[in-house]
């Protein structure tokens, strides 16, 4: 064997400077690429999120085929560990009734087979257990309740439209009474102990929102996704002033103080958990009627909740015809200084295109959105 040295004098390598320059260039390239990768991941999560909403749309329509109406937002058969607590009989969210149509017959049968039917905060059946993945928008990164970590009872990101006014949850005004339950109608497609169908949708199913996203809270006590009390009757502007839309934080301490936060009780049907109103634009404040507390848990108070998401720019909404649309945060909300319409009132919505999309029977002409 013979080694031939072609360059006779010294071996040519890289100088330290050259090496550093190359490393710097690679670092710059990676820095340019990383945000793009993150954006691609968010885009994927976002389309998954939209797909979940579409599944809800199909489930609602299959439910409609079977029952001639959409599922109620809040309703229930048993639903109480304490017989006689009438209000607790109305605790289940529509999510429960859509389970068989979301390929979760097993879960549905398990719950319905128990006597009495477990409450949504039941520590054996729901607390600490996960809900179906279709309830969970992957962009919502919260995994445990920031207020009451040990009461996390199924993650949820989707809410039902209550029209352009406040959505109530109590069906009895006195706790523990055995009096007959009252329905809570809405100007939207979903109420309490009340099922609306496509025949109730006089504005046209492609012009009426059925469901949309609501963001899960990640931080307490001021993080977005939580809810603040406002004097009754709620003035939409009083509600919106309590939320800083630039920082996406409340300016006062929000609720709940101790119990489950919105998004962490998948089968809780109260408006606090699973309703939104088309009054304040997407990603703004959510408020509770301060006169509706009366010694019960915060989440039984009537809520004027905004739709919202952790996507940038807006939210996904499901129209009543099953289409999913992206709604911009700056959608026209008309006259926010107008008083909230009565929950069973008729007539046009004062809240612009957003309000018109929320009502099922407002007879508003809806343009582009």
């Amino acid at each position, binding site marked *: 064997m013979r080694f031939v040295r072609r360059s006779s004098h010294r071996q040519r390598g890289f100088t330290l400077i050259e090496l550093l320059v190359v490393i710097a260039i690679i670092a710059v390239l990676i820095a340019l690429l990383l945000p793009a990768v993150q954006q691609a991941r968010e885009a994927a999560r976002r389309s998954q999120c939209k797909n979940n909403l579409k599944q809800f749309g199909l489930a609602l329509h299959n439910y409609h085929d079977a029952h001639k109406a959409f599922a109620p937002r809040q309703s229930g058969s048993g639903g*109480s*560990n*304490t017989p006689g*607590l009438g209000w*607790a009989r109305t605790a289940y969210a529509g999510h429960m009734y859509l389970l068989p149509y979301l390929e979760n017959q097993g879960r549905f049968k398990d719950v319905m087979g128990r006597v009495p039917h477990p*409450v949504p*905060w*039941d*520590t054996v059946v729901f607390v600490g257990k996960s809900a179906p993945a279709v309830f969970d928008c992957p962009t919502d990164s919260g995994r445990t309740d920031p207020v*009451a970590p040990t*009461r996390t009872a199924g993650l949820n990101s989707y809410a039902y439209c209550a029209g352009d006014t406040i959505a109530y949850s109590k069906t009895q005004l006195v706790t523990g009474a055995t009096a007959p339950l009252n329905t809570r109608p809405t100007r939207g497609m979903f109420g309490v102990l009340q099922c609306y169908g496509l025949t109730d949708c006089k504005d046209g199913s492609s012009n009426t929102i059925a469901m949309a996203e609501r963001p899960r809270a990640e931080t307490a006590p001021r993080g977005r996704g939580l809810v*603040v*009390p*406002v*004097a009754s009757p709620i*003035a939409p*502007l*009083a509600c*919106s*002033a*309590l*939320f*800083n*839309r*630039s920082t996406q934080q409340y*300016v*006062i*301490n*929000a*609720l709940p*103080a*101790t*119990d489950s936060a919105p998004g962490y009780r998948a089968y809780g049907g109260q408006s606090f958990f699973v309703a939104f109103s088309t009054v304040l634009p997407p990603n*703004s404040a959510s408020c509770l009627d*301060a*006169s509706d*507390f*009366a*010694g*019960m*848990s*915060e989440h039984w108070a009537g809520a004027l909740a905004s739709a919202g998401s952790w996507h940038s720019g807006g939210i996904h909404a499901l129209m009543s015809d099953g289409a999913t649309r992206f709604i*911009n945060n*700056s*959608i*026209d909300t*008309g*006259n*926010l*200084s*107008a008083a909230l319409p009565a929950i069973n009132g008729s007539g046009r919505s*004062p809240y612009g295109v957003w309000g018109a999309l929320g009502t099922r029977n407002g007879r508003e002409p809806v343009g582009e959105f």
Partner: protein
Amino acid sequence: MLRHFLILTLALMAIGCGADPDKKNRPKTVKVTGVITLQKQPLDAATIVLIPASGSHGASGTSAKDGSFELKTFPPDSGAVPGSYKVMVQKIQSPTEPSKTSDDGELVPSSDVKWLIPMRYGDIETSKLTVIIPESGLSDLKLELVE
């Protein structure tokens, strides 16, 4: 030359690709700031709401520690539409005391919502406060509440 080009590019990037179509139809707003006091003491975390006497664009704001506030008609953008308004002010405290457990396992707060200023200011009919915002805006709007 290159420098100008760079600045131009950066400026274009900052502006983005176009104005928001929903913002085009909004009326012109002017800057309105002021101070709110209760019994001559600065009032913090109060919600100030302006309901227009006519027209359809109210405004609202919340006060900071020193009682100062800024009104917004289209949050997060600053400013209110000139005109005359009725004003209401609210300040409510959430039930924050430790909760007790009801007999079926729900947590129930041991207190209800509390008003921290006289309730009459919270209603547009009883507050008796009015404001006129001129075309030039306002920088010294004073709201003086009394017990």
